[in-house]
């Protein structure tokens, strides 16, 4: 992982100001979705070798959940966006 994350609200900050919540590509299913959809949402992860999207919260800064798109091999960060602005 990169040493810094460029928070869209706070600027460039060390990774230690953030905590990671996990895969941002899984979307919480509707309440009446299938059991499998719910199982997949909670337990199954694509875990790609390469580009991935994760939720990181800037806990020491703005406390916003951010979507960090990055590479799991090179640790390069491609983009950081606010996780609430879908």
């Amino acid at each position, binding site marked *: 992982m990169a040493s810094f994350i460029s928070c869209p*609200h*706070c*600027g*460039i*900050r*060390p990774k*230690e*100001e953030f905590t990671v919540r996990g895969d941002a590509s899984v979307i919480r299913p509707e309440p009446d979705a299938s059991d499998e959809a719910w199982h997949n949402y909670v337990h199954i992860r694509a875990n790609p070798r390469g580009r991935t999207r994760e939720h990181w919260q800037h*806990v*020491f*800064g*703005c*406390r*916003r959940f951010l979507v960090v798109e990055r590479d799991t091999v090179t640790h390069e960060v491609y983009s950081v966006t*606010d996780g609430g602005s879908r």
Partner: protein
Amino acid sequence: MSFQSRHPLEGKAGSAVRAVDHLEIPRSVAIATVLSRLSDAAMVVAGFAAAGDLTMRNVAPGEWLVLSHVERAVNLERRLAALLADIAEVVDQSEGRVLLRLSGPNARRILAKGVAVDLDPSVFTVGQSANLRCGHIAVNFARSGENEFELIVFRSFAESLFEDLLAMGREFDLSYGFSGGLADQG
């Protein structure tokens, strides 16, 4: 009955001699959190501007810390609530936050021991503020002058941050002491 507010660093005697690098503990600062919908943020900022005399610290989208060094907490809360009625919530944090002011020629070097952001004045400018991490502790951090910085910390962490800052400043014989009058009487 009459109740007194006690500063969490009360009892720290202060340095005998004030050094060029100094950590000031203002006794009483009114601080409030202002929360708004993201869509109302611009109106809130306009409201602050209209008030004219408020120090506001941008914390997050739709969230600010508002400071007053002259007003009492209840007054600040009341005034803000009136000013921002219907567009924001105001939460008094005056008792929950502690402000420390570090100044002096070595302030940057002292703070670089705890703060990861680049403190070069061209990068972190006078008047700029941010929530960030100082050592292990979360603070709201602001540059109030070329060589002057303000740190606002959660009350329960105040003693730890204070001790950390003194340790960071030991190399430069950092002095410290309270400023301002006694806290208001509620």
